[in-house]
């Protein structure tokens, strides 16, 4: 009877661990109580608790994985939706009078292979440029070269006013704003032209 009591209290220990440590000795003068040390039962209870927690965590992971895979599948399916071929053909051959700029591009279907390629490219990127790779900027490197070179000069951002900013925005400009920008001191084309007209010495070939 005592043994049975003990075992039932062990299983009951999952919900109420405290209770399992109380050994209730039933009065039975015939049977000696089973010897279970405090450490053993504690260990056993801990083990079963851990097992339960592990199972719960594993189940959670599986569910998360399943949800993630489904999400991926949906993304792929979404990307696979292409425009019909004749619509593409029409866009491609359309002629138009332009008042601004236009560009025509054809979009390619993304596949699982390209996803793997992305992963591989990300691997290189993170190994060479990721955290801990100790990189600097081209600006800083060139400025250091300027400072340590034979002809010492200022850091590069002071030498070149338009460092990296001009070009990317150029293509998005309308003609009006481009004219405005060219009138600023940067543009080599107009200001240099004027400069050359004044100097007129560079191209006199003797």
């Amino acid at each position, binding site marked *: 009877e005592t043994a049975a009591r003990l075992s039932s209290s062990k299983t009951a220990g999952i919900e109420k661990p405290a209770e399992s440590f109380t050994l209730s000795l039933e009065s039975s003068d015939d049977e000696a109580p089973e010897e279970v040390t405090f450490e053993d039962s504690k260990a056993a209870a801990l083990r079963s608790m851990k097992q339960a927690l592990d199972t719960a965590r594993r189940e959670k992971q599986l569910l998360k994985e399943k949800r993630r895979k489904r999400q991926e599948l949906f993304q792929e399916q979404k990307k696979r939706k292409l425009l019909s071929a004749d619509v593409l053909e029409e866009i491609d*051959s359309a*002629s*138009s*009078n*332009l*008042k601004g*700029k*236009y*560009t*025509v*591009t*054809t979009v*390619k279907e993304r596949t699982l*292979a*390209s996803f793997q*390629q992305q*992963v*591989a*490219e990300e*691997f290189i990127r993170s*190994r*060479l*440029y990721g955290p*801990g*790779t*100790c*990189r*600097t900027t*081209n600006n800083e*490197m*060139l400025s*250091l070269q300027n400072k*340590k070179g034979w002809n010492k000069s200022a850091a*590069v951002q002071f030498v*070149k006013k338009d*460092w*990296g900013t001009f*070009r990317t925005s*150029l*293509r998005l*400009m309308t*003609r009006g704003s*481009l*004219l405005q920008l*060219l009138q600023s001191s940067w*543009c080599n*084309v*107009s200001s*240099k*032209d*004027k400069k*050359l*007209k004044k100097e*007129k*010495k*560079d*191209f*006199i*070939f*003797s």
Partner: protein
Amino acid sequence: MGEFKVHRVRFFDYMPSAIRTMAFNSQTERLAVARADGAVEIFNFNDNFFQEKVIPGQDGRATEALCWVGHRLFSAGLNGEITEYDLENLRPQYTVDAYGGPIWTISSNSQGTQLAVGCEDGTVKIFAILEERIQFQRNLNRHKGRIISLCWHPSSAQIAAGMTDMIKIFDAETGHATRRLLVDRAMGASKNKEVVVWSVGYLSDHTIISGDSAGKVQIWNGLTGTLVRTYLVTKWDVLSLVINASQDESSVIAGTSEGTVIQFQFISSTVDQHDKEWVRTRTFRNHSHDVSALAHTDTAVVSGGMDTQLVVRPLLDKVEKNTQESALRKIAFPHRSLVGCAKKAGLLLFQFPDRLELWKLGESEGHVCLMYPYFVCRFLQGEDHICCSALSACGGWLAYSTVSSVRLYRIQYNNTISINKVSKLPKELRSVHQLCFSSDSSKLFASSCQSSVIVVAVSQQECRYLHTLKHKTGEWKARMHLLCASDDGKWLATANTDCEIHIYNLHKMKLHCMVPVYNSCPTTIAIHPVTNNLISVHADQQIFEFSLVQKEYTQWSRRLQAQGLLSLWLERDTPITHITFNPKNPDHIILHDTYMFCIIDQSLPFPELNAVLWNQMTLKSLPVSQRIGQSHAFKICKSFQHLMCVSLLEDLSLVVVERPLLDIMSQLPAPVRQKKFAT
């Protein structure tokens, strides 16, 4: 005597692509270089390192490795495909999916019978190299991580494969991994970071040499599987490593993320040569960014990487010192023109791999600028990159080609710009390498696959096939890389990579003659508008003038050859990529390379052998009366750099398209941070 108004153009945002990998073919002396955008370039090391072929790239090709097998060229990339290239028609011949995910490395055995590729899925796959294709044979035993690098043993019996944290030696026959060499991770803070074996080499005596991401070059005994020696050469990665396998396996070079190339040599410290060992010898610092590609020729170390420049560093123990042969070469710009100029309309066409940009140059009257240069439009290309492009002189027609198609556009300038694509093109216009419009914009010439020229008529209504210009029937010729038409519409000149120049009579629509073959490849050709003489400049910097009418070299050309060009001219290390003429002065030939442009005045004497070549500054300082005595034919201007194009418009203004190297450098990826003393 010569005063020009100048359009100084710096808005061509040309960005070269990083060099990912390279392979040298010691039989043919050709270097194949693969760029990050998928383009493959072939340099002829026998002809002044001329970039004789360019195979356009493709979006997503992501080439990681190149491999020569005899005269055949293979590449493999992160798109999971192995590609064999058609080096005559300059396009991929076919691609084979390896079904192993992204491919990191490719290598052939010494007999040239098998190709091994290292894949993302952890397999090394073996393909049989057959006559016109490759065929999958089998996988070696799969490893649990990606295969980053591999190398065959010269006997073809083993393959060493570099992975993460280890190198495995496989038996090529059975596929089993026979040895596992464990590579140490970096010391200190990066102990948790896995070490990637970026490259590996296998010597005949079973020595394995590896370069890894922890900055180490390690020497292993492949038979016992033990580490012999470790060299910590950098704080960053050792990205590439190559052995001079075609010579005596006595030299190994390693490229690092710092931009250095380090040489190791198998030498002995004692006289009797018995105790040879691998010793670190030279360090070359010729790059500012990561060196991801290396090649070892008989006499030089070739390197390339993220800074996009190809550097050839001759080894001073293999060449004669202080000669042209021993000079360091840096190839930073393409050896062909990417700028088209419509002389009558004042338009510029910039060719990028994935698009074209059309710009109109500003106009001015006296000191007043009426119009600034403005952007007209952009033509976006899709996956296949652009091979060549052309703009007609009137600016009304634009054509470009990729490996698979040709596009033709009609451009009209009224109050607005209107662009119409000509949709129905003759079926003969398919795979084209060079395009050129006739000077009256009525015809388009296209060099096609069968080394012939397709002639089509372009008009408001349509594009109509006219004729195909061929050599003698059945005779196979190399691909044409240059095409030019005369101003009067009578002549067409073509040049191919076998150094042949052919002249066609466009009135009779047949071959007129072939210029005597000179053993250096022409880098540019042009027909003089008045005399109809053909000017050709070659990779070795020689200049020739050939009379089309007389079918022989001109007197001027013979005199130039007899006199000889000055050594300073011949030692220039960038090719002449464009020739143009002066409408006002028929004696002028205007040509340029990356660092200078030159007006050759055919009415003036050639410089004496001891004369100063760059004498413009000296002449300016002399009084006018004395200048005539000192003048010679070569008038060189070095005020503009780095030149992409120099052209003369109809209104006699000079157009100078510059792309300063600094502008390119400012847009490169991040270099490593070096701690320098006192900074």
